[in-house]
């Protein structure tokens, strides 16, 4: 597969807070999924590549849908449904649950991406942002595909944009623990990582 490039508009002010940043992420996901769904790209590929692209599109749709629910008013029923839909090992308390989530989520944005990028610049993208944040590309990849080993051949050209404010504001204030729990379940990477005895 030849891949493609997308020029994402600058995200100028991370201090806008998480809702604005979320909109930026969702708009970016739209760009990516539209590019993937582009007839020329999808239908010129071999069957195996088409299969991968379709899975990616489906993953993006789920991710986007879940992220969009954050800003909706009537989400309680949905969140309850999501929260009830999966049970982590019974030995884990809710506090454990939250701790696992917050810690892993934090690492996902701030540490894993950067470390992986710096340690393996071939496999993963370089973290442009050297302020302790990450890049949108790697974040979307972790969220949507949760697979650090997987090589995705889509290339996204991006300018610097900081996630720091977004991370801080969302972790500490903007999103409740309740939503964190739901997001935990949405991010399958975290789910698998938290479960014990899963090979």
């Amino acid at each position, binding site marked *: 597969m030849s891949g493609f490039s997308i020029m994402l*508009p600058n995200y100028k002010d991370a201090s806008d807070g998480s809702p*604005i940043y979320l*909109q*930026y992420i*969702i*708009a970016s996901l*739209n*760009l990516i999924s539209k590019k993937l769904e582009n007839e020329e790209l999808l239908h010129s590929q071999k*069957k*195996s590549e*088409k*299969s*991968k692209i*379709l*899975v*990616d*599109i*489906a*993953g993006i*749709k*789920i991710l*986007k*849908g879940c992220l*969009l*629910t954050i*800003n*909706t008013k*009537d*989400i309680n*029923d*949905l969140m*309850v*449904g*999501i929260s*009830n*839909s*999966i*049970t982590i090992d019974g030995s884990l308390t809710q506090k454990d649950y939250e701790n696992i989530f917050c810690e892993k989520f934090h690492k996902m944005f701030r540490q894993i991406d950067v470390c992986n990028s710096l340690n393996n610049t071939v496999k993963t993208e370089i973290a442009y942002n050297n302020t302790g944040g990450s890049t949108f590309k790697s974040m979307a990849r972790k969220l949507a*595909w*949760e*697979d650090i080993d*997987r090589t995705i051949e889509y290339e996204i050209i991006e300018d610097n944009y900081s996630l720091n404010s977004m991370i801080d504001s969302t972790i500490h204030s903007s999103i409740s623990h309740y939503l964190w729990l739901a997001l935990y*379940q*949405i991010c*399958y990477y975290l789910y698998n990582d938290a*479960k014990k005895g*899963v*090979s």
Partner: protein
Amino acid sequence: MTTLHTHAHVRLNSRFVSSSSFMLDKTGFSKLFYNLINFIDYDFFNKVFKETYDEILDTKYKVKTEYSFSPDFFDKNYEKLFVITLLKKILENDDPFTFKNDIELQDFVFDDSGIIEIKGESFKNTLKESLQKAIESLEYSKPVSINLDLEDVIEIQPYCKLF
């Protein structure tokens, strides 16, 4: 075949629904599959899982009299058929989801002036579209295999007929 081993335990509403050891090629499909079924209603999933199981079993053992849940049940010729059949059954239902209220989503796109808000799809439609993409993806993919280990067989016993 390059394979990805995912030992997935799925709990819906605190109960085991299925537990399988998947050997899938690296399409990322297994993760997508488990992400999707996490939103599916437990009772409904149980029902279509058993229906699918019986259908595929009937297909496979048509010429045999034995009815056993053995590790070789899901061989490479039937895994893909099983999952496609299961997903289609889920998609045929108008509302297979575990949550009651749907949500109309407000989507966001870029334009010259920045990010603008547009009317998006509902959350349930988003999931249904993902289900459809998953089916299409499997139809494009090569056959893959599922191997059930002993633990999985024990977990999945409710779906087996006893003789």
